[in-house]
């Protein structure tokens, strides 16, 4: 079990946890965190699976991860803004007070 | 015969349609008054066209129109009767109700009658026949009373059945002959294999309905009393003859031996002759009596057809006999029907001179009908005898003579019965006097049996004429009359005789009673079957069913309930019918 394979398996674990969290949890913020876990898992598998090239680790996956992270960040930001707006509409003071959706 | 002449003939024959149009446009009485005008072109064509035939250019599948000896005779009779009847109708019919409608249907039937007489091929014959039959319905149901509707419905049902049988028979015939020409049709049907027998049977049945052949005659006694006088005259004198003409045109008489057709025609003829007389005697209304007399006279024609079918060699003489008989019966019966309405009107006016004239005018056709000497009746009877005496007619001459004599006697008795009823009825009539035109029309028809003798020699062999003048012939024609007069005198003298009790025991349209009961049973059975067939569909048939229930109720409500109904049957008519059946069976065995 060379080290990179450990990362890959961990990534896969995170993926399944992320999917489960997103589907099952009712609370919006929790679901958003689930999606983030899912994206982290995917990126971990990406980097874990990257090959080594003579000048060090292969550059392309790193670029892909960078892009992926930015996309994930912006998506999460939009999600949180939406969640905030939904709670405003429902009249709750702020996110953490109420439990599920 | 070039096409213009043919077109001329067709227009002449269809000329009465103009009368129909005129009365449709609101002037029915005028149209009826000038009745002879509509019939004139047809009569004229007799002289002008003579014995020729040709094809119509485009109309009716290039139909062939023309005249031959038989159709000329038929046309003559019909034209005269139609003309006189229309004049009489114009004179006597009150203006209330659908005179306009009556005019349209009257002239429609008239045109149909003429067209079918002139038709030489199937399609035009059938068109004329259909036009006449359907238009006649208008005449039957004219009175718009319950009995008129009932008569109309029975007439219509049988007519439609006849139309379809004719259509089916014609299709079968066409499939044999592959052409419309009636001449070739006859040749094609003159075989025994293939569908020919079925076609012949269908055609014989179809025209049997119109000619009042026994089992199919039940509409006649219902239709005549319902229709107005002029209509019933025409119905009996002219339209029934169309059935006979249909037989002559379609059936291959004289070409091959048709044993089954011959035998059945003879049997049904016999049945008709005697059965009708017996039932006729039991009737109350004069027109019904006359209707039954027509049925019995038609029995004679059926006899002649049967003989011609059974022994083809006798066909020419039989044809002549039929023509004579048709002319004689047409004129006489037309006059008699008119007399039913005209006689009381004339007699009612009080002066003895008028009552004498009316009684003479009534007596003359009645006596002619019984075959009195020096009238067309005698000629017809002699023609009948001469046909039955032809050498290869293997009917036992004795049996035939008995039949003819018995027939004459029966007709005499029926006529007597009719005269008594008319005489008794004359006092009760409250109608106005008979207008002049009506009298003239009636007179012409009444004396028909006399002047018919003048025009008939054109086609009849002269020896027949000679024979009726001989003394023996006169006597043999006279004695039945004497006997009948005696019996009539006795009967009028004593009231309450057996005859009286029997009167009125049989409802007109004799066979109709059992037929209705039978249909009730069938209907209820089919209704149960249809209930099984489809739930919501039975609502429709249910309505038919409750109509049948209403009829059954009506019968039950009649006095004496079911038992009484059966009892009456046993005594009256069945006895007579059984008698006639035995007689006909005897003839059948010998044929």
């Amino acid at each position, binding site marked *: 079990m060379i080290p990179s394979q450990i990362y890959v398996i961990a990534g896969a674990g995170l993926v399944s946890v992320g999917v489960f969290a997103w589907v099952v949890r009712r609370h919006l913020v929790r679901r958003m965190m689930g999606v983030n876990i899912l994206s982290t898992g995917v990126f971990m598998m990406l980097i874990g699976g990257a090959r080594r090239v003579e000048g060090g680790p292969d550059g392309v996956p790193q670029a892909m991860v960078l892009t992926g992270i930015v996309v994930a960040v912006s998506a999460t930001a939009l999600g949180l803004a939406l969640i905030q707006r939904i709670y405003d509409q429902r009249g709750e003071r702020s996110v953490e007070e109420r439990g599920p959706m | 015969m070039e096409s213009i002449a043919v077109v001329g003939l067709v227009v002449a024959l269809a000329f009465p349609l103009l009368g129909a149009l005129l009365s449709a446009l609101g002037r029915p009485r005028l149209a009826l008054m000038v009745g002879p005008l509509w019939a004139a072109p047809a009569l004229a064509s007799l002289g002008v066209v003579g014995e020729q035939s040709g094809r119509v250019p485009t109309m009716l599948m290039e139909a062939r129109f023309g005249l031959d000896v038989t159709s000329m005779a038929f046309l003559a009779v019909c034209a005269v009767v139609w003309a006189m009847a229309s004049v009489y109708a114009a004179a006597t019919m009150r203006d209330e109700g659908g005179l306009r409608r009556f005019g349209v249907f009257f002239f429609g039937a008239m045109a149909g009658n003429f067209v079918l007489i002139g038709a030489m091929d199937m399609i035009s014959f059938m068109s004329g026949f259909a036009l006449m039959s359907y238009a006649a319905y208008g005449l039957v149901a004219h009175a718009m009373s319950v009995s008129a509707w009932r008569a109309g419905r029975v007439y219509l049902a049988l007519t439609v059945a006849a139309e379809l049988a004719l259509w*089916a028979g014609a299709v*079968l015939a066409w499939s044999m002959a592959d052409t419309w020409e009636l001449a070739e049709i006859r040749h094609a049907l003159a075989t025994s294999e293939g569908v020919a027998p079925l076609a012949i049977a269908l055609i014989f049945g179809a025209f049997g309905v119109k000619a009042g052949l026994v089992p199919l005659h039940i509409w006649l006694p219902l239709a005549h009393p319902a229709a107005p006088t002029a209509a019933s005259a025409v119905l009996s004198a002219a339209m029934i003859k169309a059935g006979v003409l249909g037989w002559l045109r379609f059936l291959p008489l004289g070409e091959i031996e048709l044993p089954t057709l011959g035998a059945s025609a003879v049997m049904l003829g016999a049945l008709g002759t005697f059965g009708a007389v017996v039932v006729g005697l039991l009737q109350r209304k004069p027109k019904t009596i006359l209707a039954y007399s027509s049925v019995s006279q038609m029995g004679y024609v059926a006899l002649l057809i049967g003989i011609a079918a059974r022994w083809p060699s006798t066909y020419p003489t039989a044809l002549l006999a039929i023509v004579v008989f048709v002319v004689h019966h047409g004129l006489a019966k037309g006059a008699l029907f008119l007399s039913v309405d005209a006689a009381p009107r004339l007699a009612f006016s009080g002066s003895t001179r008028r009552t004498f004239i009316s009684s003479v005018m009534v007596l003359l056709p009645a006596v002619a009908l019984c075959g009195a000497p020096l009238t067309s009746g005698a000629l017809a009877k002699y023609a009948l005898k001469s046909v039955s005496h032809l050498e290869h007619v293997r009917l036992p001459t004795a049996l035939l003579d008995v039949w003819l004599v018995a027939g004459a006697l029966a007709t005499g008795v029926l006529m007597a019965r009719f005269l008594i009823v008319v005489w008794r009825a004359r006092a009760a009539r409250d109608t106005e006097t008979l207008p002049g035109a009506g009298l003239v029309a009636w007179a012409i028809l009444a004396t028909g049996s006399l002047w018919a003798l003048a025009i008939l020699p054109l086609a009849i062999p002269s020896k027949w004429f000679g024979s009726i003048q001989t003394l023996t012939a006169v006597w043999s024609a006279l004695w039945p009359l004497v006997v009948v007069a005696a019996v009539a005198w006795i009967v009028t003298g004593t009231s309450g005789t057996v005859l009286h009790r029997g009167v009125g025991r049989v409802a007109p349209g004799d066979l109709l009673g059992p037929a209705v009961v039978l249909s009730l049973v069938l209907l209820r059975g089919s209704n149960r079957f249809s209930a099984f067939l489809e739930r919501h569909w039975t609502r429709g048939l249910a309505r*038919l069913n409750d109509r049948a229930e209403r009829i059954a109720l009506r019968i039950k409500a009649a006095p004496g309930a079911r038992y009484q109904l059966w009892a009456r049957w046993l005594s009256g008519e069945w006895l007579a019918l059984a008698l006639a059946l035995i007689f006909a069976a005897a003839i059948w065995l010998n044929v």
Partner: protein
Amino acid sequence: MSVLFWLPLAVVLSSMVPGLAIFLLREDQVVARTALNLLGALTKLALIAAMVFGVYRGQIYETRFPLMPGFDLVLHASALPMLFVVLSAVLWLITTIYAIGYLERSPGRSRFFGFFSVCVSATTGIALSGNLFTFVLFYELLTLATYPLVVHRGTREALRAGKIYLAYTLTGGTALMVAVVWMHTVVGPFDFTEGGALAAHYEDHHQALIILFWVMVASLGVKAALVPLHGWLPVAMVAPAPVSALLHAVAVVKAGAYGIVRLVYDVYGITFVRELGLGTGLAIWASITILYASLRALSQDKLKRMLAYSTVSQVAYIILGVGLGGPLASVGGIVHLVHQGVMKITLFFCAGNLAETLGVHRISQTRGVARRMPWTMAAFTIGALGMIGVPPLAGFISKWTLGTGAMASGSPWALAVLAASSALNAAYFLPVVFRAYFQEPLRPWPREGDAGRLETHLSLLVPPVITALLVIAMGLWASSTASPLSWVELIVTRIYPDPESGIGGL
């Protein structure tokens, strides 16, 4: 791109274009709408006259558009299509006049006449279609165009009828499309050809072609109202009279029957159909329809429903003629297509008149109506007698040919069916005539139309009289060259080229 190419298309579009234009008219532009309508009808008639003359001289008119790779939209004008086109064009003109009078003040007329014209162009398209692909295209377009007409009145009942109508016809249309596609995959693309396009193929795909035949007949049977599939016709009678007159008596119902005719003659070919014994099956199905529908008509009280059932049985005559096979029966069947159209449209016009002027919808209300509306009832009587098959009217000619055809093709039982159905026809038509002429009206009419001098509006009265005269003319002058009978003989001689089965004395 000679006229040979553009004429069939022009004929189809000559009613489509005015139709689409009428959609844009406002409700109150009556003059413009009537002008457009009549203009469309007359131009169509003129074009058709030119085409008939051309076809008579043997020219071949064909419009061909590649619509899909492998499938072209083909409009081919040979003798048989021309017959149906002439019928629908003539009757469309008459019905338009009638409809203008009938819908005098009712709402939604632009919509009505728009869809009405689209319907007729769909019917013409069906008639002229040169292959199964085009036929299916116009067949389903017809369903679409007729739905708005059925639900025109907008009442709950009309919508229910529309729903039922759609359920039947759309299922039929889809089944037909699937069958056609399946056939094209099995046999490869083909056009309608005189002697039958499948003549060459039937050895190897024997089984499939039989199944496809019955699926197609069933799907066409929905529109041709064969017995189990006829449920929609009586229900669709809720539509206004001109719709039930032109569409349910002529266009829609005939489209189904015409489809079966083309299927048997131009797709499978007579030899193939006879060999597989499909013809007798078809004839038996038609006979069942004839008798069942006549029985149902017997117990109807609503006048239009009775006429609907009678349409169901009369259309089955056409299919009986086709099923029996042999030249004579085919002539009888196809000529009945024309005769029945004219007779039935007369009856529907009269029913429409009674409903519109006097508010009489039921047979029980027709007592003594002849006195009040003599000319309408005269036309009705002529139509009814024609239906019964009384000589010398048009109905007699087609029943006669069918009868002789039945005998010629050796199935006498068909003769019995024809006779029985004529009897039933008499049984349900004559009481109406009898009531109208020989009975007094019991109560005053439900609605007293103010028709002034005539019994009803001129535009309501003239069409039935014209068609009634047409019925008589087609009967009397049946043997003349211009009559439908001789035109059909011309068609059938091409379908049955072998001399031994000549038409004979007709």
